[in-house]
């Protein structure tokens, strides 16, 4: 792996390498000193063109836990507000010689473009409605930690598939690891041909009891430019997942942020079957693992610090 742009670029082995690495960092996270020197002397730039809480904070913290120098740029309050183009911004930041650039952008393909422009490893932290691969990887990690291998596991992704980059990444990621994926939602929120990504499509939750895992998506009001649903009331009546729809062994996931009372009932979020808090915790270790695999994986397996340069050494 040189960049992390799309789940479609990854093999099962690539995914397993990241998840195994994340396991080792989970142990680090239990230590009192949670920092390792793997990326000391390296610079990581995070470039967020969209609002984000958990993704931006966990990428930043992950880089810091690995001892990287982190520069965080957000579109608000930067030259981006003055109309600077993506290419010019990236060229400016490239002057710092970053080892990795983490980018979130409202347009599909932005991360891939960046990958063509820069030498740094590019990590896609979400591009438009296209991909959100680190989310998919942390979801895989969360599930593997809870239920083991995904072969034959039935996963239902419920909600606004049309506008969701998480849906696209996760359909591919769950399928790659052997799960059977079903997407459910109103037809207005299911894009044509989504089956080609490797899933079945249904328009009701009638058979939800077959699901081992129910993965709920947020109703994304900021991406609803038309009347995709008659009302949130009708949506909730048809597709909200509450306790009465769930059996005792079914697990519930959600990439956040949740709309309590719309796609998910509050009581589910706070119940034992919810993996939502574990997903957030997994976000940190999986993103550490992504950095490590992209930036340090090829070099050495030990996490010992590299020798300090001798004073006076011109290098």
């Amino acid at each position, binding site marked *: 792996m040189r960049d992390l742009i799309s789940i479609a670029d990854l093999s099962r082995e690539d995914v397993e390498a990241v998840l195994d690495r994340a396991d080792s960092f989970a142990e680090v996270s239990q230590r009192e000193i949670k920092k390792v020197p793997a990326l000391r002397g390296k610079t990581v730039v995070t470039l967020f063109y969209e609002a984000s809480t958990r993704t931006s904070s966990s990428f930043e913290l992950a880089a810091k836990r690995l001892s990287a120098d982190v520069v965080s740029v957000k579109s608000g309050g930067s030259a981006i507000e003055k109309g600077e183009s993506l290419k010019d911004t990236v060229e400016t930041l490239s002057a710092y010689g970053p080892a990795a650039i983490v980018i979130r952008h409202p*347009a*599909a*393909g932005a991360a891939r473009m960046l990958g063509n422009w820069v030498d740094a490893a590019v990590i896609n932290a979400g*591009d*438009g*409605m*296209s991909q959100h691969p680190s989310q998919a990887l942390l979801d895989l990690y969360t599930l593997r930690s809870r239920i083991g291998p995904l072969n034959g596991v039935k996963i239902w992704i419920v909600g606004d598939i049309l506008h969701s980059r998480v849906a*696209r990444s996760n359909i591919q990621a769950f399928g790659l690891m052997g799960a059977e994926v079903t997407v459910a939602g109103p037809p207005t929120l299911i894009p*044509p041909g989504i089956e*080609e990504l490797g899933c079945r499509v249904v328009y009701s939750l009638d058979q939800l009891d077959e699901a081992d895992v129910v993965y709920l998506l947020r109703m994304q009001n900021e991406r609803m430019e038309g009347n995709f649903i008659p009302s949130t009331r009708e949506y909730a009546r048809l597709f909200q997942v509450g306790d009465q729809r769930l059996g005792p062994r079914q697990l519930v996931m959600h990439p956040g942020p949740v709309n309590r009372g719309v796609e998910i009932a509050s009581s589910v979020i706070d119940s034992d079957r919810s993996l939502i808090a574990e997903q957030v915790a997994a976000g940190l270790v999986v993103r550490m693992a992504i950095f490590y695999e992209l930036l340090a994986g090829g070099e050495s397996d030990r996490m010992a610090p590299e020798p300090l340069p001798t004073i006076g050494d011109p290098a």
Partner: protein
Amino acid sequence: MTAWPEEARPSEPEPLVQRAGDAADLLIQDAHLIDPGIGLDRRGDVIVRGGLIEEIAEPGSLEPEGVTEVIEAAGLHLFPAFFDPHVHLRTPGQEYKEDLETGTRAAAAGGYGGVLAMANTAPPVSDRGELEALRHRAGLDAVVPVGFLATLTRGMEGRDLVDMSELREVGAVGFTDDGLPIADAGVLARALQYQRMCGGTIALHEEDPALSGAGVMNEGTVSTRLGLRGIPSTSETVMIMRDAAIAGYEGGRIQIQHLSAAGSVEAVRRAKADGVDLHAEVTPHHLCLTDEAVIDLDASRHKMNPPLRTEADRLALIGGLLDGTIDCIATDHAPHALHEKEVPFEQAAMGVTGLETAFASLFTHLVVPGTVPLEVVVEKLGSGGRAFGIEPFRLAIGETANFCLVDLEASWVVGEDGFESRSSNSWCSGDELTGRVLTTVANGQVAWRLRSFTLEVA
């Protein structure tokens, strides 16, 4: 042949304008002459004097007496020059993308003897002053003759009609809000009624804004996979159905621009069967590519409106071309600067250039594989003016010389030597194409010589 009664026509100036130049005197020896419109398909010599085709005769039979140039053309083809009814020359206001000289140079390099420029400039061409200034400028800059359409509604705002009659008097070839649809059906109905008095074909960019939404490519499995908002083909088809019904009812003439979808071809076919006076264009890129090309997210090559559609749509367009449903091939040459294209796909400008590659792309993708006969491509590239009362050029004695000399064996890489256009957003950039225009004579003047060919001849 005109669509409107003679008494309804204001006195019109010449529809096309070009800068003054020297009339050609040249002899073309032993070219393969093809003019499908008059059934010409033979080898022969062509002599041009004073810009007119003086004689066409057996190979080797004409003497180069008094001509300034002799072109040995054995193995080369001579076609009537092409005519593009749909180009964007970006003047006035966006000369950083293209101007009248670079745009017409690109046309000449593609074998064109005339083009019609769209009116969605900055500001749009909505009044007499703008149009007169533009035609004056073309008289200084245009390498091949250019005609200008005016907008149909003032400022392309979709509400008030421009002063159609006055604009016709000062040379508007037709009217179009191209780039935008006429969303309000009542506006189109009134324009077609008014057309009875002043003429001027109305060219229509067919798209229902409510269906297109914020789409950036064809709606389908590819848009789903890429996570891009889609434009359904119905967006185009329903507007063609609506406008064909209005034109049929009002009795006016419309040109349906850049068909892209199978349903649209069928809508045009039915309207023609019903006797509606409508003409239809298709672009080379819609004939050669599908939305699978968008997977590379290269906005410079593959983002345009209407978008590239599916293979079924592409085949239906070819079918429409072959059975006469589609009247002509138009490039919708739409130059954009690098900084407008080198951005994420969703944010990039719509449009690709096509003048310099139209023939070669169609020859490579459709003629060489045997999908479309060469004669059909030559004829459809030449017939774009018809809807506007401009007849195709002819390879015939006594006609003004309007032709292009083409090497069907030559392969070239698009953009390798740069572009004549100011912009490089060609949908075939970097592709290897077969078939190259070596020389173009437009309106009796030599408008284009491929440099390497010229050196070889010299």
